[in-house]
């Protein structure tokens, strides 16, 4: 099923008092960011963004600070009002919702994790995690039970009556995750959740989250400024620059086929070993004899290179149902490795 859980169409966000005028001018004249700033004293936050996220996948939005990625993700639960465009979440249209519908959507359907945790220091972990249920009027006993389960899932079972400042950074962000998951929402918005953590803890949390999302079937919109993280986490990646989505694709597509110089610059230092697959780099067999060394279509570059350790003769690529479909020479493997 390819039903989109989150879909944004032609989304624009312009900040400033004359945003509506600026919007019209941009549409009719195609003004640049600078022209909008000079002529209307408005800031272009998001420019014509369209993307859709399938149910169950992790969709990364990657960009440097100021590229509009945080702004974009806040449109999904409308913490920021769009200037123009449509937003659909879990089959509901968000951009036309009234205040009550919106609050229900935020409380029940969308969980959010913040960069600096944003845990409330005056509330215990239990009260932090149970906040979404509390504002919906769920009674204390039920709230506590839900908080317990959510904290348990994050290995924080015994901490329910403690306060955020008694925890380390990594633990705090696990509380942030527990809070987002407490109401069992279909969708998770994660705004650079791990970037404030040190590398080792970040890695652990990434693994824990991947593990979690693998058997929870949640749709995740994951913001990051780190392409390595985006590649590790994302089923699809959207690269943003200056408020615009530059390219959307799978990690492999982004790395092997960057759309412009900006993206190319990003993917330069990324290791291809675990990313590029046999199918992408193989040549047609064209009547040549298949060799003894065989790999599948989805074999990663690392595995292919391993075959060349023994001898340098080409490797044959076979399709899942048996027949050989192509071959890879050592030259093309090394070229792919270089990028």
């Amino acid at each position, binding site marked *: 099923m390819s039903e989109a859980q989150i879909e944004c169409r032609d989304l624009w966000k312009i900040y400033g008092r004359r945003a509506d005028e600026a919007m019209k001018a941009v549409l009719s004249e195609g003004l640049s960011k600078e022209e909008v700033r000079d002529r209307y004293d408005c800031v272009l936050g998001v420019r014509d963004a369209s993307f859709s996220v399938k149910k169950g996948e992790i969709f990364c939005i990657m960009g440097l600070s100021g590229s509009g990625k945080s702004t974009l993700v806040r449109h999904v*639960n409308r*913490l920021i009002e769009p200037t123009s465009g449509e937003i659909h979440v879990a089959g509901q249209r968000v951009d036309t919702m009234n*205040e009550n519908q919106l*609050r*229900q*959507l*935020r*409380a*029940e359907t*969308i*969980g*959010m994790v*913040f*960069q*600096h945790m*944003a*845990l*409330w*220091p*005056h509330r215990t972990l239990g009260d932090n995690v149970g*906040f*979404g249920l*509390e*504002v*919906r009027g769920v009674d204390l006993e039920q709230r506590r039970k839900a908080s317990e389960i959510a904290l348990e899932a994050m290995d924080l079972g015994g901490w329910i009556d*403690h*306060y955020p*400042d*008694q925890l380390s950074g990594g633990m705090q962000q696990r509380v942030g995750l527990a*809070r987002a998951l407490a*109401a069992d929402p279909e969708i998770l*918005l994660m705004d650079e959740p791990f970037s404030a953590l040190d590398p080792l803890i970040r890695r652990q949390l990434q693994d824990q989250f991947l593990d979690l999302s693998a058997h929870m079937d949640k749709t995740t919109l994951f913001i990051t400024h780190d392409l390595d993280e985006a590649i590790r986490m994302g089923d699809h990646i959207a690269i943003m620059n200056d408020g615009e989505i530059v390219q959307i694709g799978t990690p492999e597509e982004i790395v092997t086929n960057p759309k412009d110089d900006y993206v190319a610059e990003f993917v330069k230092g990324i290791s291809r070993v675990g990313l590029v697959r046999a199918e992408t780099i193989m040549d047609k067999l064209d009547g040549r004899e298949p060799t003894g060394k065989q790999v599948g279509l989805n074999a990663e570059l690392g595995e292919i290179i391993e075959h060349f350790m023994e001898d340098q003769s080409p490797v044959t690529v076979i399709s899942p149902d048996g027949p050989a479909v192509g071959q890879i020479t050592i030259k093309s493997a090394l070229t792919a490795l270089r990028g």
Partner: protein
Amino acid sequence: MELWNIFDTEWVPVGAWVESLLQWVVANFRFIFQAIKVPFDIVLTGLEDGLTQAPDLLILTLIVLVAWQAGGRRLGLISLACMTAIGLMGAWEESMTTLSIVLTCVVFCSLIGIPLGVVAAKNNRFWMILQPLLDLMQTIPSFVYLVPIVMLFSIGNVSGVIVTFIYALPPVVRLTNLGIRQVRADMVEAARAFGASNRQTLYKVELPLAMPTIMAGVNQTIMMALSMVVVSSMISVTGLGQMVLRGIGRLDMGLATVGGLGIVFLAIVIDRTSQSFGISARDRGHKKWYETGPVGAVRGLMKKG
């Protein structure tokens, strides 16, 4: 008329205008001001009756217990010493009157000041209008509005509370405004992201996080109310201020000193206690208020028994 000294003539008779405006307001709208007095009167009379008519030692015990609860054993002992000193100097009755005036003033300043501060924090335009008003209330010498207050509200302790209220209101408004504005933006955003309404965000996140700052404002208000004690005694407000004023009037150094010392001791007790209320639970090591102080001690005993 000499051209070089044109300001010898009064060109704009502001004084006369104000005079006639005041006369007109007094003649036609005095009943409104008398009505405003009613709530102040009720609270003040209740507090004053309670504090002065109850046995001295009972009140002393209560004050010490409250101080102990709020600020720990040390503050309890300090309060005991200060209040005993006041009592031994023979200024107990007067200090109770002063205390009731200050407390009444704090009640109304908080009741009106905190909501004003919250609205000001949410609405920039309102804050722009409010700010000069607060400046005016703080800078205009209180002697200037003593006369109109007397004309509109007459003399006595209730008028004293109103004069003090005008002077002491600004800090709590300012610091509430500041406290709410200083709450980290992502704390508020997180509350909204989990479906909280504006009201829920205010009560569950913004006010609790701003509470230390707001309590600092309340503390400032209390101190300003105390500093008005002597001035307001000029409109025949009783209490410690009156002792000082009478002492000055009769050149009775002893009486003035007793009144003055009384104010100082009372100020120490009220200031420290109200400051202790502002310390957040986080800074107290996450102990609930009922786990410390006399209440905690009693609970401890009951659990053992």
